[in-house]
């Protein structure tokens, strides 16, 4: 599947005198040079000189060293690598959208504003939360916005709070976000079933006691600003005591932030606003299938309860109903509401990753209420099918009911000195992108598999057959696994040297 031919860096192919862009004829007088001498651009050291032919071939060849969701199953847990419908790409490229200027007056961009408003309405109904901002550019940006809303809420009640509680199974972005918002992080321990522990937990290895939610709430009380909880959690398990957790936190007026990374398990089935969540983000690049783009752009809208709405970032897109005569269909106009005195301010230069939001609404309209729910159920069925087929060959460290993803451990394979990394790399030889590995941290040698609803039975079977073959190989020929991947364009890469002696750009020899 991969092109074996090596592609050099474009800089190494540069030849003076070539160009890949011809400029239009200048139809006005040449620019007068008013720059002070020291501010005139001097030379470039790296910009290559290439024709369009060479640039196209370069990026086409490089692309063949990548793996995309159209190549096959991409079971990266917590990343929700589902099919990217081509309609969404086409719509996002409509000149009516792409040419529109963010500083244009509201009256000239009614289509954009209606698009944003409509997406807000969909997200409100899906989450059961009445407030939405579409500004955050990614999940982590959404988290930061959400935690700043929590902070603004407490400040509006005339108090500062110090602590954010985060389960030990949480994504690394959660504690990093809390720190960026000026909070101290206190970790919540997990129970053996992967959910948050109300009771204190004694570490079986070192005997240390870690305080559970109950103890932390009673000891820290009104020091707690809120908690950031992923639900379903990173083990793919629903926090079945969520309502009790939120009630307990609300008893000290601490707020509940839900990390919505795993919302693909809940759309149409359960709504965070109905089980005690005050504020959450959605990853539209996961749940609503906007393409991941090799690391972005994404979109991380934040939805919140009425208690947090006054603090939402400016501007908020609102709809006004234009008065019409009796019996006529009401007409609407849309505008940006900038007059929100309690707002935390702006979190994006303009209004978020608009082009991504267009794709997300297209996804919603295509699926509809029925398709969204069907997608959720199929994602859950697919994960459980993999679980059923692999549970004898790979250890289920946590045996709670799985939703949209299933997390195995490498403990069975470790007996043969085969570890998660080896299994992951061997999958590459079989033509698969590996699952998320070594996360969550509470599962030893975690292999977190999220098939999404985009896989049919034949694809699931092929993947499971491969995983079973690898399990067998681990017993019979473990050394072959240590060598993997053998069939990828490159063998395992030396990450240690890369970090110790970083080479972060090309320089002329």
């Amino acid at each position, binding site marked *: 599947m991969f092109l074996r031919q090596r592609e050099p860096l474009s800089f190494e192919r540069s030849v003076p005198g070539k160009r890949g862009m011809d400029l239009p004829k200048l139809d*006005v007088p040449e620019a007068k040079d008013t*720059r002070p001498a020291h501010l005139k651009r001097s030379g470039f050291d790296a910009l290559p000189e290439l024709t369009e032919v060479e640039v196209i071939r370069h990026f086409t060849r490089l692309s063949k060293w990548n793996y995309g969701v159209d190549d096959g199953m991409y079971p990266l847990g917590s990343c929700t690598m589902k*099919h990217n419908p081509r309609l969404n790409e086409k719509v996002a490229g409509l000149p009516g959208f792409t040419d529109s200027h963010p500083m244009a007056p509201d009256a000239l961009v009614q289509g954009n504003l209606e698009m944003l408003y409509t997406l807000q309405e969909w997200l409100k109904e899906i989450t059961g939360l009445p407030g939405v901002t579409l500004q955050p550019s990614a999940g982590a940006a959404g988290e930061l916005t959400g935690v700043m809303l929590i902070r603004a809420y407490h400040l509006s009640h005339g108090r500062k709070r110090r602590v954010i509680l985060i389960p030990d199974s949480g994504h690394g972005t959660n504690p990093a976000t809390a720190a960026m918002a000026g909070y101290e992080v206190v970790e919540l321990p997990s129970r053996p079933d992967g959910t948050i522990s109300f009771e204190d937990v004694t570490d079986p290895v070192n005997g240390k006691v870690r305080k559970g939610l109950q103890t932390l709430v009673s000891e820290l009380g009104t020091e707690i600003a809120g908690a950031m909880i992923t639900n379903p959690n990173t083990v793919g398990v629903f926090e079945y005591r969520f309502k009790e957790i939120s009630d307990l936190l609300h008893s000290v007026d601490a707020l509940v932030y839900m990390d919505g990374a795993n919302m693909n398990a809940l759309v149409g089935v359960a709504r965070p606003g109905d089980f005690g969540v005050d504020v959450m983000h959605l990853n539209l690049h996961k749940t609503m299938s906007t393409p991941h783009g090799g*690391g972005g752009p994404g979109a991380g809208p934040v939805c919140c309860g009425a208690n947090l709405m006054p603090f939402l970032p400016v501007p908020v897109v609102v709809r006004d109903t234009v008065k019409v005569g009796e019996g006529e269909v009401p007409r609407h106009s849309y505008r940006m509401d900038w007059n929100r005195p309690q707002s935390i301010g702006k979190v994006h230069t303009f209004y978020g990753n608009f082009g991504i939001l267009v794709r997300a609404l297209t996804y919603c309209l295509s699926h509809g*209420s029925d398709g969204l729910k069907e997608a959720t159920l199929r994602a859950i069925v697919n994960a459980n099918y993999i679980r059923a087929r692999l549970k004898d060959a790979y250890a289920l460290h946590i045996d709670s009911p799985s939703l949209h993803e299933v997390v195995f451990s490498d403990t069975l394979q470790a007996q043969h000195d085969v570890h998660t990394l080896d299994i992951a790399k061997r999958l*590459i030889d079989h033509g698969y992108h590996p699952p998320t590995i070594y996360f969550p941290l509470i599962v030893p040698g975690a292999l977190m598999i999220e098939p999404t609803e985009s896989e049919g039975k034949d694809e699931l079977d092929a993947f499971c057959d491969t995983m079973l073959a690898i399990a067998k190989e681990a017993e019979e020929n473990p050394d072959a696994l240590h060598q993997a*991947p053998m069939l990828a364009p490159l063998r395992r890469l030396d990450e240690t040297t890369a970090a110790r002696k*970083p080479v972060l750009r090309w320089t002329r020899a």
Partner: protein
Amino acid sequence: MRYLPSSPVEDRALLDTIGVPNAEALLVGIPKPLRLARELDLPTQGSEQEVAWQMMGLANKNMRFCAQFLGAGAYDHFVPSAIDAMISRQEWFTAYTPYQPEISQGTLQHIFEYQTLICDLTGLEVTNASLYDGGTACVEAALMAVRVAKKRNTVLISRGLHPMYRDVLKTNFDPHEDLHLVEVGLKDGVTDLADLQAKLNGDVAAVMVGYPNFLGVAEDLTALAEPVHAAGALLISVTQEAFAFGWFEAPGKVGADMACGEAMSLGNKPNFGGPFLGFLAVKDAHKREIPGRVVGQTKDLNGETGYVLTLTAREQHIRRDKATSNICSNQGLVALRANIFMQLAGPGGLRGLAEQNAAKAQYLRQRLLELPDMEAVGDQPFLNEFVLRYTGDYAALQEACLKESLLPGLDLGRFYPEYAGCILWCATELHTRQMIESLVEILARVPATV
């Protein structure tokens, strides 16, 4: 549903293997009272044709223009066809963050090349795989400067920074009670040196200035660097129009210790403000404090050159609450657009485009100044944006332009009360002489102030 590969026979087989009668049985982990007891109150699924028409209907509700004379942080430039063709390849647009380097060398090598070119444009040594946009890039730069400068708690920001970048900075500094963001005023369209000197002290970690600033003027970084460095602070240049790197000297070569801003101009349309492309370039000495993904070169087991995500010890998935930032997803595909754009343009293209932008903007300015109600405001070097005072009524001017499908420049008083009555104009390589003449002709007919 066309996106769900399933059939009744296969569904049955899946459920039988799992051992449940139906999919709902798998929701057992979600307590019943917490489930949604009804269907979502939303329209049902739509065919591709229906959805396409609905979305086209929305796109068509936006007003289209023959020409936009508005920049202000979102610039309309020509986008070479190769860019859309390339990024439409599924290997680029559907892939995830390159966590598994052996099958992500395409993305990794692209980012390495992109990093090289951003360093080249800015004259600095280290950059990352991108940040969200200009505003958030300013936040990351400011927070990084505070980490680098240890024990200094203040960042000075020039009033010449894009007003929305300043808003985003304020939002993000607000939660840090120990950190201060202090504005430095403008004088004659550039950062006021006297005000800057008055505010520089041992607490100042960094000073951020526009290059060019929101008014289109290239600040004299060399002159600013002197007092800033003498006070032991870092100078950060903020660029909202990346084409400026083809006209003005690389910030890293004229005194900037860090360069950040917005690079949407490299291969993107205005797109109603996003997705855009934030960047941050720094000196080698500061590389371990940079936020976000960074790609490095290394070797594989066979000694072949390859690329990996590196310096991960800074990042959230390792350091958690001690990380340099919470950022993980960035603007990967937009960075790819920029990379392809830069490689097509090359040094000649980038310089040539900058020269054309300067020529068009100078011609527009000259023609507008021939109108009786337009007056010059300052005479500093600019690339493609400049400010003129308009003695007429902006609303009337705007109406006249819109009637002829032209989008006029920005009413600057909206963001700078001290510039009330001034307009920020922009012209790029897209503006033909004909468009400029049409604008001038229309403005000449706008009725004088009542």
